[in-house]
């Protein structure tokens, strides 16, 4: 079937001849994708999609994980070739068979997965695009990096080796990289997924400046409140097709969410109704008016529907089972680095059974290192880590897993073996369970994998190579792997980065279920909405130190924001003491 639903058909051609377009120079799209189809085997990732960007416009692309957003934009940037369809730049058909062609045509892109050379410096990475064969002018490039960074308001050390940077810092380099070269169309594939609120503001500022200079931006995000703020036009993809394409003016996150899920989704309201009842019951039982719980959450970070909804629901289910006094994960005095530059400074945290403890903080303040120390891939200079009374700090990663430690690390790609299949990755950590002597019991593996794929709703076949999965599906695989073995303590670092609303909710529900079964969860995140929504307590890390800890019920984004920037407030100390008392 080739003809898209009529509404979508009309909507997707809106770009070329939209009568209600209020722009001064309509009709002359900077770049257009026309009838693009791309298949991977039997899977139709893009089904006759047409899309365009006008000068000065931010065109937001939305859709669930695996809808085909990245595939479409990668085609425009020449990273992937369509099966059929054409690309037009300034109205003329243009063959874009490589990123070099794309850059020459004035198209730049920040890809969803980082594409930086880890062993090179920031400057060298930025020089790569358009570098000739002869002498390179490092000093000039370095100055240009600093200028470009300043122009968009981020600070970057041009001489840092990329592999020494945190994930958040790398993302900033990516964004600077795209702006480093003059382009008229900029594609941003989930650029804000790793940014803290302040940096998102800065990014939006820079996008505003770029569009007012006539540039067109394609902006992919799962965060609806971002999209409604910044987009001029919104297109929604579902299963490889454009199902709606509208001017953004007047659209509320609520409306977009409705367009995204379409008519067929009825499960969500039921679930939330259920939770609301639960919420009321709970609130009454602890002597609170439910309205108080819901009140402040709505205004967080200027967001409206989705995250607030998640918060409401997760708040509602908080602490259904009483938090026990027994600790699931005890981190004591973990220190890394020497006196002058401590990466982790006497970090002490305890996660009790049946509790979710959040760690808030701007990325690069020691979170990555803490997770690595917990996982056993980095050795701390001092300190102990106990899982349910078992000291694990001397153990290797596999022994830690056996001791009941589970993890979801922020680097998804680094947590899977890209060349193996979905099924193989799923059982990688518990091969012992499927052994018959030295052999693998393939039947049992297949059965187990099939069960996990169903239970965790992974949209893939057991035999698919894991590297072909979309971010959301890959995260589901990791989640399935970590949770299915029933860990006593789970460390989840940025578990919802890059996931669509549905997938986020899914992750939350899994984490909550794990907590309700009596496990302790340590959730490291930069998303305050997420932390406030799901955690029982929130600690804040700054410069490798835990500088405050609040019960989530008392925490406000403002208080956390202050702590995250290093302001050790008295209030925080008080509540800290209150918690420990």
């Amino acid at each position, binding site marked *: 079937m080739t003809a898209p639903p009529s509404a979508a058909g009309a909507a997707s051609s809106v770009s070329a001849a939209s009568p209600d377009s209020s722009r001064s120079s309509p009709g002359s799209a900077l770049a257009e994708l026309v009838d693009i189809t791309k298949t991977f085997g039997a899977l139709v990732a893009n089904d006759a999609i047409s899309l365009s960007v006008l000068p000065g416009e931010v065109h937001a692309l939305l859709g669930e994980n695996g809808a085909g957003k990245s595939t479409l934009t990668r085609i425009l940037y020449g990273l992937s070739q369509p099966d059929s369809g054409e690309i037009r730049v300034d109205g003329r058909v243009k063959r874009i068979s*490589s990123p070099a062609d*794309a*850059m020459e045509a004035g198209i730049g892109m920040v*890809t969803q997965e980082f594409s930086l050379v880890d062993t090179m410096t920031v400057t*060298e990475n930025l020089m*790569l695009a358009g*570098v000739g064969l002869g*002498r*390179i002018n490092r000093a000039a490039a370095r100055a240009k990096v600093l200028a470009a960074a300043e122009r968009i308001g981020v600070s970057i050390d041009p001489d840092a080796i990329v592999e020494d940077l945190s994930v958040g810092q790398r993302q900033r380099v990516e964004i600077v990289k795209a702006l480093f070269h003059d382009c008229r169309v900029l594609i941003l594939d989930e650029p804000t997924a790793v940014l803290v609120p302040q940096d998102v503001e800065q990014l939006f500022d820079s996008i505003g400046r770029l569009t007012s200079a006539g540039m067109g931006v394609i902006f992919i995000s799962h965060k609806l409140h971002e999209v409604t703020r910044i987009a001029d036009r919104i297109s929604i993809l579902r299963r490889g097709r454009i199902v709606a394409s509208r001017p953004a003016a007047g659209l509320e996150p609520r409306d977009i969410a409705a367009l995204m899920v379409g008519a067929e989704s009825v499960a969500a309201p039921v679930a939330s109704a259920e939770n609301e009842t639960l919420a009321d019951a709970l609130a009454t039982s602890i002597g609170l008016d439910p309205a108080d719980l819901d009140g402040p959450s709505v205004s967080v970070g200027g967001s409206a529907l989705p995250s607030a909804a998640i918060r409401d629901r997760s708040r509602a289910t908080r602490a259904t089972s009483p938090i026990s006094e027994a600790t699931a994960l005890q981190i004591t005095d973990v220190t890394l680095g020497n006196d002058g530059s401590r990466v982790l400074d006497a970090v002490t945290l305890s996660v009790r059974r049946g509790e979710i403890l959040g760690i808030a903080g701007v990325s690069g303040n020691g979170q990555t290192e803490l997770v690595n120390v917990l996982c056993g891939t980095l050795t701390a200079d001092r300190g102990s880590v106990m899982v349910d009374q078992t000291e694990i700090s001397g153990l290797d990663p596999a022994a830690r897993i056996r001791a009941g430690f589970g993890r979801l690390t922020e680097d998804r790609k680094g947590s899977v073996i890209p060349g193996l299949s979905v099924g193989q990755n799923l059982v990688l950590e518990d091969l012992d369970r499927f052994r018959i002597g030295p052999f693998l019991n393939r039947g049992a593996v297949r059965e187990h994998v099939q069960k996990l794929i169903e239970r965790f709703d992974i949209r893939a076949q057991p035999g698919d190579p894991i590297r072909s999965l979309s971010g959301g599906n890959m995260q589901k695989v990791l989640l399935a792997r970590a949770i299915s073995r029933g860990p006593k303590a789970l460390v989840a670092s940025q578990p919802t980065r890059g996931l669509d609303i549905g997938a986020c909710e899914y992750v939350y529900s899994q984490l909550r279920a794990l907590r309700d079964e009596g496990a302790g969860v340590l959730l490291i995140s930069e998303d305050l909405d997420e932390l406030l929504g799901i955690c029982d307590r929130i600690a804040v890390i700054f410069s490798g130190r835990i500088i405050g800890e609040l019960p989530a019920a008392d925490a406000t984004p403002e208080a956390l924001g202050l702590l995250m920037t290093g302001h050790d407030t008295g209030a925080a100390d008080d509540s800290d003491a209150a918690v420990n008392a």
Partner: protein
Amino acid sequence: MDFPVFAVLAAMLTIATPLVWAALGAVINERAGIMNLGIEGTMYAGAFCGFFAAATSGSAWFGLGAAVVAGVVAGALMALLTVTLGVNQHVAGIGITLLLVAACDFANRLLFSSGSQTITAKFDRLFAGGGIFSQYPLTYVAFLVLAPALWWVLRSSGFGLRLRAVGENPEAADAAGIPVARTRYAALILGGAMMAIGGSFLTLSLLGTFTIDIVSGRGWICIALVIFGRWKVWPVVGGALLFAVTDALQLQLAITSLFSGVPNELMIAFPYLVVIAALAIWGRGVRYPGSYLKPYRRA
């Protein structure tokens, strides 16, 4: 005992020359992400083609040109197999070595059936009688031109940057608009030419003739040297000198009465054992180029 230190040092520079040429060629290949096990065969082809062209034309320079052509062809063949066709690099490289060695031996038998007694035009040492400075032109070029130039290219030129990007993270290089396949072709062709020049040094400079098994594993030594030197120009040159000095010592000691009881084969094996020991000690925990051995295909 009066030990001939300067003779050993002079011999060291001469012995190291073909290793420096070939190992630096391998550095270029591997920095681009390709391990070229065709190195042994490429050196052999350079040695034979250089000899053949010099013998028929009477000009050593003509021989050198022929060696370069042989190296370019061998490098292009390796590129065709591994870059374009995505063949496993071990298989392609060993295949090329087997092919080239057999082809050269066969041609040698056909063309010089009388044996390997033909003496050709060859390069002479510069500064004859100048002690340690009395070396062949290619030795001077290797240490004074090639190594510094390559060091500069890898560090400070756009080509070097492209090469490293392609070898570390071809996806990122591709996204930056660098033609991955073309860069790898260039690396293999350039590296192949250097390997062949290294091989031709044996026939056109040292011996003036071609003998069966003339390269005798120098290519494999180079592969080890590159890992030992961690893909960096000067450490690789240092490794070549280390191998060469043990070889020179071994040659020197073999003629002193002190070692007359030691089997000659053991003496000859000595430098190879040193390289293995050096690799065992310093070759651990090395960090290979990010896309080492991996073919690149765009999704």
